[in-house]
């Protein structure tokens, strides 16, 4: 049962243009030029209860814009968005109480107070009954291991601790939808892992839908079965991650561990060589006959070990996005 409907959504921004240099500044001082920059163009999709969906795309592709439309921060230029039956930009209190948004780059906890203080404020703002509040704080504290930091002022926390507190603070009212915008940005690998595990757990426990954008492919890989690829404001792909790889990466990677040095020319007979370095080599084999190629290599070349892998997603997407000039994807 879908809880988010997005129907031919478009969103344009008004950006004022500045020419470089002093003369340019003077000109734009006298007459300011505005440019309409389309950020999201005709995007449609639906998201169901309990889904975890990852938005993928290069910088400025329109991921965050879509997220902001869904959370009611932006008015769509045209098209429709409906979330839990509400029109987001009307910003009804009831709607706002059933969603939450965590922005990796924007802080919502009061800087000079402890996370506990901010939690109390959130409790009051979101009208959370005492019992629910205590229970959720307890749960979240356990899941995120917050016990040691709850009583420290936020400004004294590390980036990772702060993000965990942000997450906890954003979930106290038991939202049905989580919008996570770059939730792991700037965190170290362990902390990224912790946040991922938490989000997955939370989704499983509460059945809340999670919509996240991230630069880190690992986030999306670990969490989202379904991805929406947004590129240049358009929806370029909607489906599960492995289908994306299958569709966009016709080749598999054959990783060879050679028993003795082999010249690149000799390997190129079987399939295009992706890289060769000492005794390690990688070939690109078309999906369909990868097994046959592997068999031939094993016959003809001294191979110590062989492995068949998918192309790393980063690379698949990198190639996907390269085709389009970045200029048109300005925010």
């Amino acid at each position, binding site marked *: 049962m879908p809880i988010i409907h997005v129907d031919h959504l478009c969103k344009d921004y008004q950006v004022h243009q*500045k020419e470089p*240099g*002093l003369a340019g*500044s*003077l000109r*734009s*001082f006298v007459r*300011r030029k505005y440019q309409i920059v389309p950020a999201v163009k005709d995007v449609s999709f639906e998201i169901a209860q309990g889904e975890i969906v990852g938005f993928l795309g290069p910088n400025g592709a329109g991921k965050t814009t879509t997220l902001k439309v869904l959370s009611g921060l932006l008015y769509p230029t045209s098209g429709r968005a409906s979330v839990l039956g509400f029109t987001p930009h009307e910003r009804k209190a009831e709607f706002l109480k059933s969603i939450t948004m965590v922005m990796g780059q924007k802080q919502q906890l009061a800087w000079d107070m402890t996370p506990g203080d901010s939690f109390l404020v959130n409790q009051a703002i979101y009208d959370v009954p005492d019992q629910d509040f205590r229970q959720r704080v307890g749960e979240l504290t356990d899941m995120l291991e917050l016990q040691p930091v709850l009583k420290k002022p936020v400004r004294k926390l590390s980036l990772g601790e702060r993000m965990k507190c942000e997450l906890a603070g954003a979930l106290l009212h038991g939202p049905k939808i989580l919008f996570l915008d770059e939730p792991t940005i700037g965190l170290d690998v362990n902390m990224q892992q912790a946040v991922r595990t938490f989000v997955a757990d939370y989704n499983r426990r509460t059945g809340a839908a999670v919509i996240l954008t991230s630069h880190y492919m690992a986030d999306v890989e670990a969490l989202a079965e379904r991805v929406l690829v947004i590129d240049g404001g358009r929806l370029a792909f909607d489906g599960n991650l492995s289908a994306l790889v299958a569709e966009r990466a016709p080749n598999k990677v054959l990783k060879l561990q050679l028993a003795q040095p082999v010249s690149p020319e000799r390997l190129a007979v079987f399939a295009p060589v992706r890289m060769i370095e000492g005794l390690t080599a990688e070939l690109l084999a078309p999906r369909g006959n990868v097994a046959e190629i592997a068999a031939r290599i094993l016959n003809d070349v001294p191979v110590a070990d062989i492995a068949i892998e998918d192309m790393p997603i980063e690379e698949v997407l990198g190639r996907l996005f390269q085709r389009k000039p970045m200029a048109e994807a300005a925010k």
Partner: protein
Amino acid sequence: MKRHLKLILLFIRATVQIQLEYRSGVFGRTLANILSTGTSVMLLWAMFRQVPSIGGWSFDQVLVLVGIVTTIEFVVEIWFYPSLSKITTYVQRGEFDVLLIKPVASQFLVTFRHLQVMELTGLVIGLTVIGVGMHRVGSVTSFNILLLAIFLVASVVIIYSLYLALSTLAFWFTRIEEVASMIWLHSTAGSFPVAAYPPWARLLFTFVLPVAFVTNVPAQAATGRLSWEWGLGALAFATFVFCGATWLWNLAIRNYSSASS
């Protein structure tokens, strides 16, 4: 020296570019400038309707004082405020190291980095009011103008030094952004002859918040009423606070470098 001049010009150019971005700010601040001087003149007018003189000064003499306050306010607004109030920000965000590794004296950098020479309204209004006042007093002579110029420079030096010293405190107390805005007090307190205050306040306004030197002395110079004691006093005070502030700055930098290594 030549390199420094060139740097100052480059800094000005950069700030002008930034300011042009914020065009509506220009309008708002110009309006504020006019209103601020208008306020003072109107206030004087209302006061002089009730009394013949304030602290022994006539309306026209106080008018010169108002012009001087406006002029100095202008200097603070386009120069000291944008430059020196950033010190606190630099320190808080730990961006100060970026300044320290530059091969130019840090005091020079913080002083001249953000000179916003775009808005000359304040200067125009200030000088006009001084001119009108001097004309009405009948003290427009080249000697008086020369004296006025000298003592205006001394005032600017005093204000600069105090502002720098207060901002320097940021190195020790990182959370006091507003400290330096105390400087603005001079524009209210300084709009009146120091003689108009009760005796204890006169002492306060001479040595602690030195509006006597900053506004009263130039006004007396412009109206041909400056005694040599006050003149020398102002020059000595300016030299003293400038050396003091520079010393404090260097001390702060030394502390900062040794603490943050």
